[in-house]
């Protein structure tokens, strides 16, 4: 009897250990390379090529000859909420971080993926600081407050968080500005649709998601006044089967262009492809492979240059807490290549709108803007600020669906 209990307990303990082992964020330090090449130029001279090569190798390579004389010029700890190969947000963030390593060779990067919760983020960041990280790049929504708290107890470490709003003495936020890019995607969708119905698969009715949907619809309306965007929520960032159901449900409503704001676009894109419906990607440019035939275009984060610049200011000691927002013109939001079915005149038109957006000739949320019920949300001559965009709880006229 005792033996039985012993075996049962052992089995449960073993299972838990395996679980914890698999879930624990894998912090793999990248080997330090050529620690002499510290860039001294001004940050604008950083190469502008978006990082496309697979930088994963850097993190997994075991250093054979570690230089003992000089260590890395800067150790950066980067953490992600999900897997860095998700063809979505985490992959885009991972590539942006690895661009630092490509541009500044003496930097050492410690990465941890699959850190979704606050407690895990705190221990992961503490671990990274113990391993010598002087700069932390936290990329998930849930990382903001753990990072802010740690920044107070580690005043000598610089914390950069993606997509938040808090600021501190050694804590700052950076992010791309997707609304412009979403407007552009709307233009492309509005040009391509024949049913005048666009579909948007959203995870949750959050402020930024609603802003993306609004920008998308406004872009589409700018070329096609009758166009509607139909929204349906999956209430999960990663329930793939429900994403497929939702995509199909929208297509069955007559939608002929599908786009999404979920963690990874792969299921939505491949479902749209299997129904023969156009799609537009978001988060990472790697999404195109899932819709080889009916791909229109897509937009994703390419923050590599700005992160390189931030890291270089940390190295030369000029870092200051700035609330960094950068859009398409700064190279922080990239537009994916057009698909084969997009006619040349549509491509030219979209590129023209892109130039106008980058030049500031088009302001996406410039009044007058009406909501679904016809109430004026942004008055004539006013614009929506970043703060307001993050807390939007209404849809512009032309969107079908409930904003809350």
């Amino acid at each position, binding site marked *: 009897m005792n033996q*039985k209990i012993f*075996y*049962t307990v052992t*089995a*449960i303990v073993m*299972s*838990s250990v*395996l*679980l*914890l*082992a*698999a*879930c624990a964020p894998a912090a793999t330090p990248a080997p330090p390379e050529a620690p002499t090449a510290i860039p001294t130029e001004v940050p604008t001279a950083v190469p502008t090529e978006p990082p496309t090569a697979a930088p994963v190798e850097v993190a997994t390579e075991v250093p054979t000859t570690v230089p003992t004389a000089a260590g890395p010029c800067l150790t950066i700890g980067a953490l992600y909420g*999900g*897997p860095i*190969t*998700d*063809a*979505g947000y985490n*992959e885009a963030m991972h590539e942006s971080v690895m661009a630092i390593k490509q541009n500044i060779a003496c930097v050492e990067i410690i990465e941890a993926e*699959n850190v979704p919760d606050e407690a895990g983020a705190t221990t992961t960041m503490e671990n990274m600081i113990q391993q010598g990280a002087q700069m932390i790049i936290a990329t998930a929504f849930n990382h903001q407050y753990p990072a802010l708290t740690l920044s107070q107890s580690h005043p000598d470490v610089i914390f950069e968080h993606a997509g938040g709003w808090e600021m501190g003495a050694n804590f700052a936020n950076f992010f791309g500005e997707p609304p412009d890019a979403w407007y552009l995607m709307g233009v492309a969708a509005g040009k391509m649709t024949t049913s005048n119905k666009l*579909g948007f698969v959203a995870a949750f*009715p959050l402020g930024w998601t609603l802003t993306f949907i609004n920008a998308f619809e406004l872009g589409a309306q700018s070329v096609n006044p009758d166009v509607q965007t*139909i*929204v*349906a*929520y999956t*209430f*999960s960032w*990663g*329930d*793939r*089967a*429900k*994403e*497929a*159901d*939702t995509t*199909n*449900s*929208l*297509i*069955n*409503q*007559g939608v002929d262009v599908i786009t999404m704001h979920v*963690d*990874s676009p*792969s*299921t939505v894109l*491949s479902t749209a492809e*299997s*129904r*023969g*419906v156009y799609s537009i990607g978001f988060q990472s440019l*790697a999404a195109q*492979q*899932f819709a080889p035939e009916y791909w229109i275009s897509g937009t994703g984060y390419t923050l590599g240059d700005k992160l390189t610049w931030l890291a270089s200011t940390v190295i030369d000691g000029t870092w200051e807490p700035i609330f960094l927002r950068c859009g398409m013109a700064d190279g922080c939001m990239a537009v994916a290549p057009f698909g084969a079915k997009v006619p040349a005149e549509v491509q030219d038109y979209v590129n023209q709108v892109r130039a106008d957006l980058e030049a500031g000739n088009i302001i996406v949320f410039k009044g007058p803007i009406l909501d679904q019920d016809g109430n004026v949300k942004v008055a004539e001559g006013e614009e929506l600020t970043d703060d307001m965009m993050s807390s939007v709880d209404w849809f512009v006229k032309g969107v*079908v*669906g*409930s904003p809350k």
Partner: protein
Amino acid sequence: MSLLSILGVLSSAIFSGTSLLYTTLGEVIDERSGIVNLGLEGVLLVSAAAGFAVTSWSGNPFLGVFTALLAGGLMNLILGYLVIHRQANQLASGLALMFFGFGLSALIGKSYVGTKINALPRIPLPGLSGLPHLYTSLFSFDLLIYLSIPAAFLVSWLLFRTRWGLSLRAVGENAETAFASGRNPRLIRYQALFIGGLLAGLGAAHLSLAYTMTWTEYMTAGRGFIAVALVIFSKWHPVRAIAGALLFSGAVAFQLLLQSSGVQISPFLLDTIPYLITLLVLIAWGGTRKQSAPASLGRIYYGTE
């Protein structure tokens, strides 16, 4: 609401109901032999990850289905060892198996996140070729869908029309009596768990290799538990499980249809419809006099001296 959107609900119910149906069938067999498998969620995840990994590695989805099948069977045998051989508590062992599955599947699938695979090929229903692609694609099913309803009848035949099924049900009702009549309860329970695991593996394969064509951590999102509820819903009968799986996934598709047709009801509320329906049916079933649960469900068989 157009014809397309109504047909769409049916199509979605079939597509996302298939994985539920296979999993429920597996659990019916487990429970008919007297074992509650609360670890299904973990079994599904490990099967889905293993099947996806092999498909991605070999390029052959059928090899992936076969792997998922085996992985499901093996996962269930772990539970078998704990609850049959070691005589551990079924509920605790099931939950431990689930957590084990979370970890193991994350480990197996780690390098396959975001990979593109050759999905299970789809074969359009015959006679629809004249319709536009938008309609035919609704009813372009893969092999696992075509086999799901025959599978339910096959399980029904196995349970109610074969000597093996009779022994299995006897063990589930009363293992001691079954032993006295010359049957080996331990062996039969191992067999039941293995076959149940194979079926759960098929469900997982459909989820990752046919419907979503992707692998992500925790992609089953509670389907293992829904299957446990559907077993009660179907009163431990494989053929009624067809209705249960279709009703649940149909309800999901229906609420999405309401959302996407712009109904002015909070989407949060609409999202709870499938679960509310499940609850209501369970409440309604709870009032019936005839108890159809296997009598020694969840009880440990200590052997007969």
